[in-house]
């Protein structure tokens, strides 16, 4: 841990700002405050170990790290976090001069057409410039939502007030701490392994690009050191070309850097890159001079910009190198101290400081929901039990109440019902049977007797004038739905004095055959014909059917 001013960090920290930013896997933090109109740096720290996470570093800086369950903020320091621009993409667009609320949908539409991801997977922030030549320039910054959410998860325990793009901090630091200000300039901020190239217009970030070449790639030793190194290698190896080869490699990287810078200038829309100043933020080391000279040789209007050490007071160590190292964190801290809005807030929908403090209604708590479910299940079981227990008694009481006088219980009622049904099955309607027998016989059919026995066929005997009349009678009986199996079992010649006499012989035509046509015998004498007809009446006369019932 580099501790540039570790003394007395708890003194005079009222209303101060702590800004932390990650730069090439190194966390850098500063605490700033305003006193008597001047900005003062209370301390600055950075990690040596790249494995140190945000929470550990915050603890090292004396910040209160909160768990998710903690509520409220007891800290008297504002914390701002810088988000690396490496995960973001900047775009510039022009929209017609419309109302501010109308710009939003236009910008979103333009962003959707330029991005390979759907809008629900990305977060967009934009900022409109003042209208110029009938057009409004808009700076858009887009990042993957998942990346932002992951970052928020990491830094939420620090309870940051704001999360700001670190390139915004660079621009702010350039404007405030570094010497030269230009209305329109390209700011080059180099770190060990990457280079941030930001376009600033009217002192605001307008576009930004990250190059993967850094100081480690472009650094040059001092001429004396370079000569000594070359001589040593030459003596050891005995090859004269070492120096020239190293120089050739260095030149190649520098050329690549220059090419990248020209591409960036193209991307920023400058056909004549020499028109706009390229300000390389520097700590006054020789490397930057070399870089600037390379850029200048490529017709870029580049120059070195040094920090103004007098702009910031420090309780501890100070100097150009020191300010340069913490420029991004200082810029973020200055933004937070000024408190002004208007930065590109890409975390607008992803991070809210008070999100965890939002009290959810108790009904949404899983524990409460589980408890309610358990209580409801228990209630259901108890109610079902009570119903099963009480309903039979209630039914019995209700059923037995009107029959208390007769001392009848439910079982008796059931038995009575069964018996009544059985009686209904056992009780033939003899009156209906007599009516049926009578209705079927036409005039001239005289009945002498009717016999009904359960489980036996009904037998009727009587006297008719002719065979035709008899068969018609049989046919008529056969048509009755309650009558089946009608048979003439006996036909005889009737005596003049008696009801009939059995002939003993078979009937003149089949007894169960269909009636039709004149009988073979016609009228059998003056006294008529006696007959006996048998048939089944419903199920009363069918033994098998009754047995089944």
């Amino acid at each position, binding site marked *: 841990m580099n501790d540039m001013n570790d003394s007395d960090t708890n003194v005079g920290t009222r209303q101060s700002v702590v800004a932390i930013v990650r730069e090439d896997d190194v966390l850098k933090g500063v605490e700033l405050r305003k006193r008597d109109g001047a900005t003062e740096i209370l301390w600055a720290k950075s990690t040596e170990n790249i494995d140190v996470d945000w929470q550990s570093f915050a603890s090292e800086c004396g910040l209160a790290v909160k768990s998710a369950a903690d509520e409220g903020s007891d800290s008297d320091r504002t914390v701002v976090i810088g988000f690396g621009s490496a995960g973001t993409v900047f775009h510039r667009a022009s929209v017609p001069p419309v109302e501010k609320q109308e710009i939003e949908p236009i910008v979103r539409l333009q962003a959707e057409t330029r991005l390979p991801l759907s809008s629900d997977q990305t977060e967009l922030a934009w900022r409109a410039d003042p209208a110029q030549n009938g057009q409004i320039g808009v700076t858009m910054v887009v990042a993957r939502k998942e990346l932002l959410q992951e970052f928020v998860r990491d830094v939420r325990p620090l309870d940051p007030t704001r999360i700001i793009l670190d390139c915004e901090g660079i621009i702010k630091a350039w404007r405030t701490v570094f010497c030269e200000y230009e209305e329109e300039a390209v700011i080059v901020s180099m770190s060990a392994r990457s280079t941030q190239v930001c376009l600033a217009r009217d002192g605001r970030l307008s576009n930004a690009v990250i190059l993967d070449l850094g100081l480690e790639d472009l650094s040059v030793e001092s001429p004396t050191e370079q000569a000594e190194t070359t001589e040593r290698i030459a003596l050891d190896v005995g090859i004269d070309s070492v120096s020239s080869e190293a120089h050739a490699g260095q030149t190649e990287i520098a050329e690549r850097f220059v090419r990248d810078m020209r591409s960036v200038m193209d991307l920023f829309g400058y056909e004549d890159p020499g028109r706009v100043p390229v300000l390389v933020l520097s700590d006054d080391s020789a490397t930057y001079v070399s870089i600037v000279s390379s850029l200048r040789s490529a017709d870029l209007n580049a120059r070195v910009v040094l920090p103004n050490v007098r702009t910031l007071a420090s309780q501890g160590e100070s100097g150009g190198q020191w300010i340069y190292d913490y420029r991004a964190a200082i810029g973020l801290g200055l933004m937070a101290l000024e408190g002004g809005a208007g930065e590109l807030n890409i975390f607008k929908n992803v991070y809210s400081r008070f999100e965890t403090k939002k009290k959810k209604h108790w009904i949404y708590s899983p524990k409460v929901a589980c408890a309610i479910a358990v209580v409801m299940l228990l209630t259901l079981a108890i109610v079902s*039990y009570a119903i*099963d*227990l009480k*309903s*039979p008694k209630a*039914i*019995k009481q209700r*059923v037995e109440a009107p*029959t208390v006088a*007769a*001392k*009848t219980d*439910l*079982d*008796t*009622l*059931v*038995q*009575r*019902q*069964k*018996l*009544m*049904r*059985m*009686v*209904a099955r*056992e*009780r*033939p*309607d*003899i*009156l209906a049977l*007599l009516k049926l027998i009578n209705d079927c016989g036409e005039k001239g059919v*005289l*009945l*002498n*007797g*009717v*016999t*009904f*026995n*359960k489980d036996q066929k009904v037998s009727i005997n009587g006297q008719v004038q002719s065979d035709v009349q008899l068969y018609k009678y049989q046919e008529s009986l056969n048509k009755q739905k309650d009558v089946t199996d009608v048979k003439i079992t006996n036909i005889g010649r009737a005596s003049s004095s*008696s*009801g009939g006499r059995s002939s003993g012989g078979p009937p003149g035509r089949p007894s169960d055959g269909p009636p039709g046509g004149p009988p073979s015998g016609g009228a059998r004498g003056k006294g008529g014909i006696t007959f006996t007809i048998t048939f089944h009446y419903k199920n009363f006369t069918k033994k098998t059917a009754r047995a089944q019932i």
Partner: protein
Amino acid sequence: MKLSEKDIRALKLAAVSVVVIVVFLVGLRWKEHWGQARIESQVLKAKLNDIDMSETKRKGLMAIVPAFKMPVEEEEQGFLFRNEFNEQLKKAGIKNEPLVTIPNKRAPLTGYKSLHLSCKASKCRFSQVLDLLAKLNENPYLVGIEQFSLKIDPKKRSEVELNITVSTFTNTTSRTGRS
């Protein structure tokens, strides 16, 4: 004495175990009781289904059996049935020979026997027979007509000879009931 985390955990586990055992024991009894209550409820519902019938069916049943009294023991039932049947014969104006009791032949329903009464009337009018048959269903002890025979005198066709055997149920169990 301060309890360690391990002790507290063991105590919590023991407390939960005790609660589970108690709930299990009580729950088992409760479940058993509930099961019985459910069975009782189902039996009752089955009985109610036996009693319950649609209005149409009920009317049909009442048309066939307009009056019914629960059978009692054989001796009493025979007496009541004979009395009632005699009354109906008298009302119809049928002069009959003494009624003959025919002992039970079959048991159509468990717990009950069948008792038959045979009636013979050598001379009666056909209209009287119809009157008797029309009113016969009002006998609350009557089960059915087992045998019916009508012979018409060919010389005097208004007179008929009637043989009728009617039946009733008698209760063979000790329990009796009337309605």
